[in-house]
């Protein structure tokens, strides 16, 4: 029994993995072609402000050094084989290995995203439950109004509002930068980091709440209208007990899954929030790479963010697999 289940899980993972692999290869190839066709000059990205001082011979040398003088297919193969060996190349603007930069920045972004993810998940879930249990009351209307408004709110504008209120007017928080300017990285304290984390995390959470809350609300309304809740009511259950016994278990799983499947949006939100609060994470790096034409870094980030999304989807699938009894325990008769 157990063995067969594991076997099924193995096949499931294998198929998933294969699909992800084809997608990943395609994404690498397409992104590579795209960035190679960009009119933004990668050599300029490398040289930066010294452009005027560089003559044509030097340009050629630089191009040769980066392999930019070769046919695109050759470049792709070179890049691809390096990629397979775990080498993402060297960032042109930071002049350091892309993998190193991504690793460093990911830690920062991860703290930000996890905070926002947990906060928005928990608060959104509670709001959705409250709203559905009190359907058509003022609480429900308030929560619905809040969520619909938030769903239409530009993330970056919300960030600006937070800046205006908490950083400029109240002066509680610094206006930007992940670490205080002029302080050596080694001297940055945990408290400093937390201080710079709060505003972007709150911004992301405020926005992220809407999706979970509306989804949970709808799901719970459906559950409350289901035959099994009708029967539970016929047996005298109501209010919180009813929710606890029949609502929670039927709503929690889809909500958690939704949160994991929303990693892509979380990443997008982080791009904007990091940009506004000058928070040194992956999102900010993505914008920098795009604006300044750092091809290796941009490609590395595209691939990494794809992995990030895949991870979320995979976890969502696995949770269903592990938790939902309908997939966990196969038919026993």
């Amino acid at each position, binding site marked *: 029994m157990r063995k067969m289940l594991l076997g099924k899980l193995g096949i499931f993972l294998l198929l998933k993995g294969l699909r992800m692999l084809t997608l990943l290869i395609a994404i690498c190839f397409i992104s590579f072609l795209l960035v190679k066709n960009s009119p933004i000059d990668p050599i300029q990205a490398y040289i930066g402000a010294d452009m005027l001082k560089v003559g044509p011979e030097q340009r050629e040398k630089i191009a040769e050094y980066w392999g930019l003088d070769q046919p695109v297919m050759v470049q792709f193969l070179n890049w691809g084989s390096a990629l397979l060996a775990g080498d993402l190349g060297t960032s042109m603007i930071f002049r350091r290995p892309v993998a190193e930069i991504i690793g460093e920045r990911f830690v920062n972004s991860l703290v930000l995203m996890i905070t926002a993810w947990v906060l928005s998940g928990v608060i959104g879930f509670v709001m959705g439950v409250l709203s559905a249990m009190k359907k058509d009351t003022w609480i429900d209307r308030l929560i619905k109004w809040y969520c619909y408004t938030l769903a239409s709110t530009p993330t970056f504008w919300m960030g600006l509002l937070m800046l205006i209120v908490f950083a400029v007017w109240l002066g509680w928080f610094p206006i930007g930068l992940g670490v205080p300017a002029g302080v050596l990285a080694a001297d940055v304290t945990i408290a400093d980091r937390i201080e710079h984390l709060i505003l972007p995390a709150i911004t992301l959470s405020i926005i992220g709440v809407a999706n979970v809350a509306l989804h949970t609300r709808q799901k719970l309304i459906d559950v409350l*209208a*289901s*035959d*099994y809740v*009708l*029967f*539970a*009511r*016929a*047996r*005298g*259950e*109501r209010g919180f007990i009813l929710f606890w*016994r*029949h609502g929670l*278990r*039927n709503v929690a799983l889809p909500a958690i899954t939704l949160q994991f499947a929303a990693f892509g949006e979380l990443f997008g939100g982080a791009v904007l929030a990091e940009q506004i609060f000058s928070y040194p994470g992956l999102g900010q790096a993505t914008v920098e790479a795009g604006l300044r034409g750092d091809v290796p870094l941009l490609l590395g980030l595209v691939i990494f963010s794809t992995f990030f999304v895949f991870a979320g989807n995979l976890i969502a699938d696995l949770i269903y697999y592990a938790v*939902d*009894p*309908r997939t966990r*325990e196969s*038919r*026993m*008769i």
Partner: protein
Amino acid sequence: MPILEVENLSISFNQYTAGLRRKNIQVISSLHVTLEAGEILAVVGASGSGKSLLAHAILGILPDNALVSGTIKYNGEVLNASTQASLRGKEIALIPQSTNYLDPLMRVGNQVRTSVKTGDATVAQRAVFKRLHLQQSVEKMYPFQLSGGMARRTLLSTAIVSDAKVIIADEPTPGLDPVVMKEALNNFREFADNGCAVMLITHDIESALTIADKIAVFYAGTTVEVAPVEDFTGNGESLRHPYSKALWRALPQNDFIPIPGSQPHPSALPTGCLFAPRCTMATPACSEKQPDMQNIRDGMVRCMHAT
């Protein structure tokens, strides 16, 4: 005094139809039914005649877009939403119509235990499972793992362990094998003999006749006849309403002749007697106004030509 009395019950639904209009569909109209302690009342009628809605109305669990009028009395006391809520599961228990009524993510043993109001829930649940020939391992299963018959028996168990005075069983027998079915019906008889009341909603007139005391016949959202079970005999001469007679004669062991035509949809009810379009005894007067319920020979009937 009857333990449960339903008088003049009407139920309608508000529905949006295509475009911008809204419609009110009457699905149950001036329905009367009484239930005495110690007796089994079988409710029979075609599907869509409003049997389940009656059950849900008694318990006060109709959907929000339902409009209800009429009175429901329990032990002589007129019920309202809050008294209904306090009776549910304690005094009145429901055995629902379909096995979808089990929570898909809860082990069935636990679902039965939540119905136990006094005493050790686990002991009660195991005892009733044993009685209904369900193995103890079933209590750890989820509804999707049960066969149709097992799910039916689980539903039955929830009512049996509840200690309710009134049990409303909404088509509890489909999918049960003959042995378990007999056991289930005997259970109902035992309940009634112990002073409870059972409303047995069913398609299966034959097995209803073997245990019921009275039969209520439903047609298009109202009761057309309530008769003692003894009247269902011979060619149906003792029955009062043309529909009940036809229903009786349509049974395989009798003439086995189906009734021509079909029950009208709630949105297209005829004026006058609801059965008139299919009635062989209909006269022009029948189509003018809906006949009232009248008492005839120890039973009730809604037909102006009844004898």
